[in-house]
């Protein structure tokens, strides 16, 4: 069975500072990993995905993530955050039967 663990429920950060949101996964099969973002009162939106190939993947809005097989991690990073990045971020793993399993989310709170 596949699962993901998001280690931080909330991450406060000042605007223009770098940020890392942590995600660890567990999977017994080939790993497909994703980050989704949920802005207040909206649905989820795909931020980036890792299917195969380069372990560093770039997504929308300047975010990137690195797949690390030895550490079973897929941490999300951004070198300089903006107020508009305030949102809930969900790590997800593709499981069997074409389903996604989401983590519990990390709330990124960007302040001035």
């Amino acid at each position, binding site marked *: 069975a596949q699962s993901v663990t998001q280690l931080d*429920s909330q991450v406060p950060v000042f605007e223009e500072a770098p940020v890392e949101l942590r995600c660890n996964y567990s999977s017994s099969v080939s790993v*497909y990993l*994703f980050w989704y973002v949920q802005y207040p*009162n*909206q*649905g*989820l*939106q*795909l931020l980036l*995905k890792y299917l195969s190939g380069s372990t560093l993947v770039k997504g929308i809005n300047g975010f990137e993530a690195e797949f690390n097989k030895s550490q079973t991690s897929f941490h999300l990073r951004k070198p300089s955050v903006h107020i508009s990045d305030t949102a809930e971020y*969900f790590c*997800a793993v*593709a499981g069997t*039967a*074409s*389903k*996604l399993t*989401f*983590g*519990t*989310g990390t709330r990124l709170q960007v302040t001035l």
Partner: protein
Amino acid sequence: DAMVIQNPRYQVTQFGKPVTLSCSQTLNHNVMYWYQQKSSQAPKLLFHYYDKDFNNEADTPDNFQSRRPNTSFCFLDIRSPGLGDAAMYLCATSVRDSFYEQYFGPGTRLTVT
């Protein structure tokens, strides 16, 4: 713009009174999903359709039913809502071969009084 639409955005129902939530899409995707998301929790898959093939999650209560009359529309019926069913309900769509790239609607927030 192609999109996933959910109506209503906010729904209040009484304990035990049946309620239906609707989802429509203009993406022409063949897969549609219903998720339940409670506060500060991960979205939980209730069921999904591949075209008209219905796939129920093993732990989805019988109180939750779904209908997909055509490609564009999908409904979530809660036959007898309990206080524990208060949540955000998210509809999503995808193309079967890229199921991981799901397009979400804005959700319906259900309150049970």
